[in-house]
């Protein structure tokens, strides 16, 4: 179930020639998405080691400590909220459960930079919350009474935790629903108290799902520059950024970025190693859902309120704030006609990128099933690296690769045919698609791999012995059976593409703006009201896939 490491199914009869073409395609995809890191490596080598003296003496001690505290904090918050919510909605039947079950996914639609910016305003001394507190306590000016500033490590951990917990909630809920039903029922029958069932049965069983979810949430945390910078938290990612921008030392930034990537890879491997003795097996053919216990009356209401808290903090409050701000702006200055262009760019870019990313994901995941072995598992690892690196870094890597390719194509065309092709990849927006695919392939390959893993190998064997080719088997057996997983992968990738900022900012063609770049431009200028319209648009576009996702989640079981 890990996103970074594939399942290793044992189909048991791969001959040397079976799926050779698939293996080739998977290697090509892997090389394609690993290329940007090659570009970075080339950059990093050009740097001088002198940077590290400065890094070790004045940046790393603080940046490393801050990064670790932030990661631990976000890890704890997302695990606590994600697991608790998943248990509440799967094991208990209380009024409103059906609604909160999917509404708990909504914070996925809120990018980290938007949550930081919204809460800075909501919780500011001159904002609504502190205003109300002062009114209740009878103070007239913020100079007399103030709450602690949200611009702190604690603020950053809580805000990130409340938008990132769905990454834990989704896999853990799925695990509770299916895998643990039998054992929980057995425990119930044996009279184990409710609380003990959670701690001693459900939670240990959910550990791999928690690990997957938390690793995704932590990678999102590592990727974040906007929120951390806004809230004054100096992470390693922010250091990469200042090394590059303020000291214009790209090789140095590449060195830090690659070291960070190495740390992530080691951590993931360690987590995997720690779980090496545990075996989890589920039987996909028996879809028996966990039967929730009815909870009514005051206790039911209490559970409902408990479930509403993360939705309120992670989604409803910032969304409401943005609606208020955006409507102020519309009344004040009207709607900008640019918004239509931006909607078209945002949606078309995200759609194409999603299609490409899902296709790549199918190739990687299916090859891994068809031809398990060193090549396919390395393809899988390489292909999913992009998610672990900060978006800015991936963007620079993609730029190095594609701009070089563009230049070569253009020069060749001029030399041979006397015509200039201009910037084929960057000029057409293909560079952006490439960047998105590199960045989000881990999500699509991971979910599709998990989807395929639920299909018993005997079906492959039956299909193949009836004369279907590997591709035919994929089309007639796997695709129909893993439709839900593939759609889910597509939806997650789509939301992420809509939210993506650094690569979009760096690699777009002339005259193209998306909601995210518009938002950034306005925020950089400080015209927050105008930015709130774009932010609201991102939220709305992001909500659609999230709602669809919840429907899949429901019909899938």
């Amino acid at each position, binding site marked *: 179930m890990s996103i970074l490491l594939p399942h290793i199914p044992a189909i048991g009869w791969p001959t040397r020639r079976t799926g050779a073409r698939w293996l080739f395609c998977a290697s090509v995809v892997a090389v394609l998405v690993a290329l940007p890191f090659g570009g970075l490596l080339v950059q990093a080598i050009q740097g001088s080691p002198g940077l590290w003296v400065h890094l070790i003496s004045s940046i790393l001690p603080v940046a490393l400590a801050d990064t670790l505290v932030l990661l631990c904090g976000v890890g704890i918050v997302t695990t606590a909220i994600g697991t608790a919510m998943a248990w509440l909605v799967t094991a208990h039947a209380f009024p409103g459960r059906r609604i909160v079950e999917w509404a708990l996914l909504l914070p996925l639609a809120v990018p980290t930079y938007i949550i930081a910016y919204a809460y800075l305003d909501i919780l500011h001394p001159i904002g609504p919350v502190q205003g109300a507190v002062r009114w209740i306590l009878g103070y007239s000016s913020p100079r007399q009474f103030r709450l602690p500033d949200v611009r702190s490590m604690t603020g950053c951990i809580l805000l990130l935790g409340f938008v990132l917990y769905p990454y834990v909630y989704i896999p853990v809920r799925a695990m509770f629903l299916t895998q643990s039903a039998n054992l929980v029922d057995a425990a119930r029958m044996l009279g184990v108290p409710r609380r003990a069932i959670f701690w001693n049965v459900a939670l240990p069983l959910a550990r791999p799902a928690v690990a997957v979810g938390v690793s995704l949430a932590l990678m999102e945390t590592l990727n974040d520059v906007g929120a951390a910078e806004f809230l004054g938290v100096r992470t390693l990612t922010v250091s990469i950024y200042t090394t590059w921008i303020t000291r214009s030392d790209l090789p140095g930034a590449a060195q830090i970025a690659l070291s960070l990537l190495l740390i992530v890879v080691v951590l993931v491997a360690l987590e995997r190693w720690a779980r090496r003795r545990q075996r989890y097996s589920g039987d996909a053919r028996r879809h028996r859902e966990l039967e929730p216990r009815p909870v009514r009356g005051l206790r039911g209401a209490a559970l409902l309120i408990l479930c509403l808290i993360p939705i309120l903090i992670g989604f409803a409050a910032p969304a409401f704030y943005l609606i208020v701000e955006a409507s102020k702006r519309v009344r004040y200055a009207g709607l900008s006609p640019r918004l239509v262009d931006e909607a078209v760019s945002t949606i078309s870019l995200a759609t194409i990128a999603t299609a490409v990313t899902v296709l790549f994901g199918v190739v990687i995941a299916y090859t891994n099933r068809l031809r398990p072995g060193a090549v396919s598992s390395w393809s899988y690892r390489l292909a999913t690296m992009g998610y672990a690196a900060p978006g800015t870094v991936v963007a620079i890597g993609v730029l190095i690769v594609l701009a070089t390719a563009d*230049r070569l194509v253009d020069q060749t065309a001029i030399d041979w045919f006397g015509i200039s092709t201009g910037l084929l990849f960057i000029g057409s927006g293909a560079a952006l698609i490439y960047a998105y695919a590199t960045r989000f392939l881990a999500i699509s390959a991971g979910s599709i791999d998990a989807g395929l893993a639920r299909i018993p190998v005997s079906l492959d064997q039956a299909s193949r012995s009836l004369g279907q080719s590997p591709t035919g088997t994929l089309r007639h057996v796997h695709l129909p059976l893993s439709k839900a997983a593939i759609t889910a992968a597509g939806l997650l990738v789509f939301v992420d593409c809509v939210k993506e900022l650094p690569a979009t900012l760096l690699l777009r063609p002339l005259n193209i703006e998306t909601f995210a770049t518009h938002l950034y431009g306005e925020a950089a200028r400080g015209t927050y009201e105008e930015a709130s319209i774009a932010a609201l648009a991102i939220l709305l576009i992001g909500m659609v896939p999230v709602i669809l996702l919840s429907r899949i989640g429901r019909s899938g079981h």
Partner: protein
Amino acid sequence: MNTHAIAASTFLAASLFLDAGAAAAAELNIYTTREPGLIQPLLDAFTKSTGTKVNTVFLKDGLAERVATEGASSPADILMAVDAGSLVDLAEKGVTQPIESAVLNAAIPSQLRDGKGHWFGLSMRARVLYAAKDLDLASFNYEDLADPKWKGKVCIRAGQHPYNTALFADYIAHYGAAETEKWLTGVKANLARKAGGGDRDGAKDILGGICDIAIANSYYVGLMRSGKGGPDQVKWGEAIKVILPTFKNGGTQVNISGAAVAKNAPNKAEAVKLLEYLVSDEAQKIYAEANYEYPVKAGAKSDPIIAALGELKIDSKPLTEIVSHRKEASTLVDKVGFDN
């Protein structure tokens, strides 16, 4: 849906093999780290008077890397940036070309442009002090920021932000690195909250009672007080008074926004024309009015809101000297843990 949107979607959809960026005649491509909204009025006016279509892409970080890696194939004609350091960077990375233009040289004072014509300052902003309205304070020196009497009362954005490293570099130019380190340590000790946010947050936080004084750019005062940012920001702008601080033995620290002609500009002649237009009286007036910056051209007037801040006495240290200290300044920021 307008034609642009249709064009955009068509080429995005069918785009993988087509290059829609290839320019027809009389077009000009600008890569800018300055939000296009701010310069759009100027570009529109230029298109209207010359018929040249102007395409822009707003890049924040990595403009230099993008132009450099695009190399000879780059469609960029003009590179625009909002900090002298970034302009010098572009020149040092070799992505600009020298321009010899009597119009530009006559309009822009020599300390605000590159000696060889690699970049030109087009507008100026000052790093000023926002102070709580009721504070008994009429003048201010940058040196005072480290005075312990301001303990817990100072707000500022991240020390690593180019606006701040430029100010700190100016301090190094005046006093040297050792003194600057002491001063920065003092300023750090005076901070009311973590260094971070934007310049406008200084005004907002003064209104919110978090701090008494803040360091920020001059044009935000115009953006806030004019009501262009909406009614809330008028309140922030009205909550502060603005003082143009000086160095004890110098003037107020200014930075520029400026432009350079790209080394491989396909439309060089048009590019120079646009730059020359940007220093015309008409354009300098738009600069002053649209974004509340100080015009660079002698005799061009500032916006009344900015003019009301008092007379700007520009610091004596030349921009190129300040810029040469900015990496040192950035290192000092880390060393004293300014942003921690």
